[in-house]
């Protein structure tokens, strides 16, 4: 399968020198000796090309054919346009040229006659004459390949790259066939770990600098470098400092030889024996495009796939390496039904029968209101859509939600478009001149956004404003940083809005009534309540006021609970005052956070962000679904869990694990009359269930996901274990619906996709086929929203007791989807609590000391991690860490306050 053929955005410079990982390119017809090619031999004088019509274009002649390309195009790309391939090693379309491998030397006419020049670094010039097939060029290509191979170990039979290796391919096409150089080869490190997941073979390395350049140009982390010089030159890490850039694995994809290999996938595949499925990553809401390589029903490796509107061609290391869970032996293989207190294997018909009859009887005795359903933002649109359809229509309740669902003050539309942030990546022309991040840490939570932002800052001169209680990585770019007290964001944002109002006073952008809504947020309050430097807030306000296209992004950390609504109001005020209202965006962090809301997995909204009261949509849905839909708003995620066992009698949980979040919830789940869990593993929640239904993952069934900028993308089925009875979500729900008396019309999952595309206006036309390999962004204008207006903002009093807890998530969180890849274990964050050095010193704590973190709700014993990025007076306990259920301390508060005391061991 060639993903290459799929759509390519205009930013694309030229195809990478290596066919992999985007699929093999067909070799263009190779003219023997180049003799028949026009212009070969450099002698023939070709007709002078006509001057281009566009003054920004340049016309030149390559191998006797003329071509017109934009100014600044490199010769290698101009040749590509004519279908002329110039071999390259060091050149890469996503990296700046270094011209060090010399493979691309071609003859370019100049004032002193034709000269050999590197096509990868020389830009086109008017009337340039280029010859790529002369004897001289051939000789040089042969010589360069000989140089490249001279110290190369030629261990192709045991090299992962074999079969998709540019060095092999080019040796076949351009090599001398015979080497006259018979001296012994140099020996260097062969199986050298430069990180837990990346292996370097210095003997295979051809010193093309691609890896070095990636880390410098994209990650801004020069973690690989050249050491020694001359013939001894090698690539290495700084002593004792492994590559830890979150997207470091990309260097494996771009290495043109087998020098960098994927340790997780090592020796697990031969490129010619694998099936390649173009899919997307579901570890976070970016939705990076990837290719899943599989064989004999198991995923062997994951590589990046180009989508210029999403991830360029990069993946983060979690997306690339953490796929061990797909084929893990602990996956549920068969339905389980509780008998005599124990979960025992059952047939599908038995299990489904139990679920159907139990739900029916509870509905009869306690009413539909006593039943609830929880879906998951990790699952596809189809799974979640069907879950809400089943419960809204067949059961008749709006008790439907997902974690971070209705409790979060989200905006419906997500980011304007990732390409707007990515636009400056190859040139100094940023679409977003200011990006404000409120309560999101892209470096941990959205690693590819992090890479795009770094590019935007460094190449596009975009300014970053960061509001976060931790001094997150991106603060290194010296934009205004506001490390306010956790929980004081609403006041802070309104304060920035007030400062900005002064800046824009004479312009017409600010709403007339603005001043009244921001009056409370005085400088004094910013200083005392938020604990920030007012000058820094002024800087932020100035930037936003001056910006032409600022994007303001906020995340779940600041959007939870009642105070989350205040933050949203304050952000609305700020955006209105500074004129960036259309570019205020909430980003959920899970793969399908956006999709879940889009398909209506919410207690208070119908699919397509329509209110429950939307009669028109309700009519359509009732017609399609064949029955009435509950009208009363349902319970939210936390309300359902809090009420479990009391007003809620039965819960159907698909892909969520609330029992791991709070011990209190686990107890309540246990008190339910009936609990069904549909999942991949026997999670803490599943262990409490009456019936467990084994599901399949995103890799095992077709599904669509909607990323943080509303791009709907396909994740096709790549593998499926023949030994497992696990079934797709849609099929389980379809069977269950049938047993509950509903007749659903789906022949396969694409039918569900089609129904979504039919009933949700924003999704009109987005059928499986229409989405293609690059996805489609749904049009924000397709949903009707009230025009935003200035909002009152109240700041709740912040307790000054103890320490406030900073949440957020980390990339290597050690959840199930991470932990099942054992090679990554050393990278996991661990059950730890981050604490400011000053606080640590006060208590005499160092990294590794055990601490007791306690609140009225419970306590945790965690290892200290002294970390200067944590605000003094706060502690950092990321969410979703197994063994650190910070929910135990929360009691629903967005920002809980805890006491810290030295833990058991260190006290002893």
């Amino acid at each position, binding site marked *: 399968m060639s993903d290459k053929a799929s759509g390519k955005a205009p930013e694309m410079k030229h195809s990478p020198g290596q066919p992999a990982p985007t699929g093999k390119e067909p070799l263009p017809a190779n003219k023997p000796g180049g003799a028949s090619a026009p212009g070969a031999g450099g002698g023939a004088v070709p007709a002078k090309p006509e001057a281009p019509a566009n003054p920004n274009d340049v016309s030149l002649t390559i191998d006797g054919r003329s071509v017109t390309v934009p100014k600044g195009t490199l010769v290698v790309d101009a040749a590509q346009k004519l279908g002329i391939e110039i071999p390259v090693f060091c050149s890469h379309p996503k990296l700046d040229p270094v011209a060090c491998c010399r493979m691309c030397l071609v003859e370019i006419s100049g004032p002193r006659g034709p000269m050999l020049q590197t096509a990868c670094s020389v830009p086109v010039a008017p009337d340039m004459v280029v010859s790529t097939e002369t004897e001289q060029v051939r000789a040089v290509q042969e010589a360069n390949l000989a140089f490249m191979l001279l110290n190369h170990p030629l261990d192709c039979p045991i090299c992962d790259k074999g079969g998709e290796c540019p060095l092999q391919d080019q040796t076949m096409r351009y090599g001398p066939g015979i080497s006259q150089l018979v001296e012994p080869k140099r020996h260097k490190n062969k199986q050298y770990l430069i990180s837990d997941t990346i292996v370097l073979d210095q003997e295979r390395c051809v010193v093309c600098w691609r890896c070095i350049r990636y880390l410098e140009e994209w990650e801004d982390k020069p973690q690989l470098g050249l050491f*020694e010089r*001359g013939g001894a030159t090698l690539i290495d890490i700084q002593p004792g400092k492994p590559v830890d850039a979150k997207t470091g694995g990309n260097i494996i994809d771009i290495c043109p030889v087998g020098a960098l290999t994927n340790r997780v996938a090592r020796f697990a595949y031969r490129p010619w024996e694998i099936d390649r499925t173009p899919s997307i990553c579901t570890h976070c809401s970016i939705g990076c495009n990837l290719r899943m390589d599989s064989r004999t029903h198991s995923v062997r490796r994951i590589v990046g796939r180009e989508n210029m509107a999403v991830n360029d061609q990069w993946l983060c290391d979690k997306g690339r390496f953490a796929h061990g869970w797909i084929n893990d032996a602990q996956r549920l293989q068969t339905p389980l039904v509780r008998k005599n207190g124990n979960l025992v294997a059952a047939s599908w018909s038995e299990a489904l029968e139990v679920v159907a009859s139990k739900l029916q009887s509870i509905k009869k005795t306690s009413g539909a209101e006593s039943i609830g359903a929880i879906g998951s933002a990790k699952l596809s649109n189809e799974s979640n859509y069907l879950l809400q359809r089943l419960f809204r229509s067949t059961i008749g309740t709006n008790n439907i939600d997902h974690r971070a669902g209705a409790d979060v003050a989200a905006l419906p539309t997500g980011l304007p478009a990732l390409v707007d942030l990515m636009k400056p990546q190859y040139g100094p022309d940023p679409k977003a001149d200011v990006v404000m991040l409120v309560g999101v840490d892209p470096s941990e939570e959205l690693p590819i956004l992090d890479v795009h932002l770094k590019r935007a800052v460094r190449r596009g001169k975009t300014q970053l404003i960061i509001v976060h209680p931790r001094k997150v990585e991106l603060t290194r770019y010296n934009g205004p940083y506001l490390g306010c007290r956790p929980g004081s964001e609403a006041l802070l944002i309104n304060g920035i809005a007030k400062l900005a109002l002064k800046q824009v006073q004479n312009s017409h952008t600010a709403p007339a009534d603005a001043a009244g809504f921001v009056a409370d947020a005085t400088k004094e309050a910013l200083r005392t309540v938020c604990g920030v430097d007012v000058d820094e807030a002024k800087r932020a306000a100035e930037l936003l006021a001056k910006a032409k296209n600022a994007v303001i992004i906020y995340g779940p950390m600041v959007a939870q609970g009642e105070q989350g609504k205040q933050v949203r109001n304050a952000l609305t005020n700020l955006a209105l005052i500074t004129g960036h209202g259309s570019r205020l965006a909430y980003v959920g962090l899970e793969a399908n956070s956006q999709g879940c809301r889009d398909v209506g997995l919410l207690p208070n909204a119908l699919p397509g962000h329509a209110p429950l009261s939307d009669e028109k949509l309700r009519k359509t849905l009732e017609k399609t679904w064949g029955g009435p839909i509950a009208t009363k708003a349902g319970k939210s995620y936390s309300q359902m869990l809090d009420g479990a066992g009391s007003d809620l009698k039965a819960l159907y949980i698909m892909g969520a694990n609330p029992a791991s979040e709070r011990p209190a919830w686990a107890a309540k789940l246990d008190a339910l009359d009936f609990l069904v869990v549909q999942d991949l593993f026997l999670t803490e929640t599943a262990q409490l269930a009456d019936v467990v239904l084994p599901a399949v993952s995103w890799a095992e069934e077709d599904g669509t996901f909607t990323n943080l900028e509303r791009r709907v993308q396909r994740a096709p089925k790549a593998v499926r274990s023949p030994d497992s009875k696990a079934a797709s979500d849609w099929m389980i729900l379809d069977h269950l619906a049938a047993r509950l008396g509903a007749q659903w019309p789906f022949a396969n999952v694409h039918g569900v996709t089609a129904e979504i595309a039919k009933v949700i206006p924003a999704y009109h036309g987005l059928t499986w086929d229409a989405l293609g390999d690059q996805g489609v962004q749904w049009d924000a204008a397709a949903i009707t929203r009230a025009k935003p207006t200035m909002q009152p903002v109240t700041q709740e009093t912040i307790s000054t007791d103890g320490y406030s807890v900073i949440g957020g998530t980390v990339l290597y969180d050690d959840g199930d989807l991470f932990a099942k890849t054992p090679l990554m274990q050393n990278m996991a964050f661990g059950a730890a609590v981050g604490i400011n050095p000053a606080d640590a010193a006060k208590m005499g704590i160092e990294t590794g000391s055990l601490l007791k973190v306690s609140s009225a709700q419970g306590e945790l014993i965690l290892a200290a991690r002294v970390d200067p990025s944590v605000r003094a007076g706060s502690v950092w306990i990321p969410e979703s860490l197994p063994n650190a259920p910070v929910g135990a301390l929360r009691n629903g508060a967005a920002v809980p306050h805890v006491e810290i005391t030295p833990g058991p061991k260190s006290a002893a």
Partner: protein
Amino acid sequence: MNRADLAAMAQREQDRQDAFRCRVLCCASTPCLSSGGTAVREAIEKAIKDGDLDADVQVVSTGCMGPCSRGPVVTLKMRGAEDVVYEQVTPEAATRIIQEHVAKNEPVKEFVFPNDAPFFAKQHKVVLANSGQIDPESLEDYVARGGYTALAHVLREMKPDEVCESITRSGLRGRGGAGYPTGIKWDLVRKSQSDKKYVVANGDEGDPGAYMDRSLMESDPHRILEGMAIAGYAVGAEQGFIYVRGEYPVAAKRLERAIRAAERRGLLGSRMVDSQFNFRIDIRIGAGAFVCGEETALMASIMGKRGQPVPRPPYPSQSGLWGKPTLINNVETFGSIAPIILNKAEWFAAIGTDKSKGTKIFALAGDVNTTGLIEVPMGITLREIVYDIGGGIPDDRAFKAVQTGGPSGGCIPAQYLDTPVDYESLRALGSIVGSGGLIIMDERSCMVDVAKFFLDFCADESCGKCAPCRVGTVQIYKLLDKITRGAATLADLETLRELCVMVQETSLCGLGQNAPNPVVSTLRYFYDEYEAHIRKHKCAAGVCALNEKPMSPAVVAPPRPKRKVARLDELEAV
């Protein structure tokens, strides 16, 4: 300080010097110090004290006087008499010079290096005019000899384009190796539009055996500063850097002192010489890599990056230090500027040949009677340099070849001894003028071994960035080594030729492009010597061990079809 102040300062210093009946100039540059210069100076001072001549005699430490192999060298300047140069001065001789020559005006004949000796007579000192004549640590001494008047003149009387034009008319070409016309380069930088520009003096001098630049920096540092400041004015730069090789601490120290002194007197810095022009100079110390002399690598090094070349274009004149237009010239090039301004372009252009103007400094080394630092007019023949200035080959052995341009150059055999030394003539012979190393070899040198020496140097100094140089130079070295061990076959010679051409043609920077030159030129002129090593196991010079045999033919790679490559044909045509 303005022009009148400058003249007054010069006059004061001149008066001070004239007050002494006699001035004793002791060479205090590295070669003379290493042959006992310090003891000589002590002896001189003691003799003066003993003779109670303090008021009469001034002792001055100077830079290099030229005939380095004949050091320690001392020059005696008696009021009203011609300078007398003493060579190979011992402490005893020094005492006698004071007691007899200074006190009694009776020169110590056996130590006198006659002024009319061809060593001096055939030289023409323009850039080295002050070397050995002034105290390099004295700004006043430099000013007394007309220092900084060129700068003052330029700042007052000339517009930047006129300066560039004047340099272009002088015909001065870069002395760093490539010989690019200096005025044209200046004008390119002048015309580049930018808020900031830089001037860089290249004092990295990595050629083994060459020390022209070190000597100039040590002997006459202000001359370089003055040239740079004029350049800064001409191209519109306010910041200059001198990149000094790490092995040259004395040069760096003297330059540093010179900069401070000039700044204190308002000859550098803001609103210098009472003008609107500001120019600062800072020193950057290299870390001893040959490739850091290459301009793009040098700039990378100044910017704190690994010293590795980057492809040109863009040239430094468009995008150099921190992406700004940058003028980079060799220190000797800058040293030529003040005389051109003072004496007019036409004067300079009258020296030398049609296309190579002015004078060039060479470090004469190897098998000649007098080695040392010489400055000669362009167009002088190699024979004059070897036999007149250098005094011929020791013990009347036969001259074999001269290596010009160091590891990037080539050798020139005896039949071309009458070739004029200029850019074009040497290039036609397959060598280059280069930065100024001249190594004379007599019949005791094996040319295969010589080539091997230079390739060893280049393979070691290759920065490792580009494949041909990184791998190719090592490979060429190995093949040469194989020949000197006796293990080579004639097929290896073919491989060697091809390899050389490929490394020349495909390397990224001048280091790799020129690294094979010593091999190519020795193959061109001494092919029979290579053949003798292989066919007859014979090294005429008796240098190579030749104690191995070729591998069995089975192990030797089979020949492959030949490709037509212009450079290879050229090579084979000879």
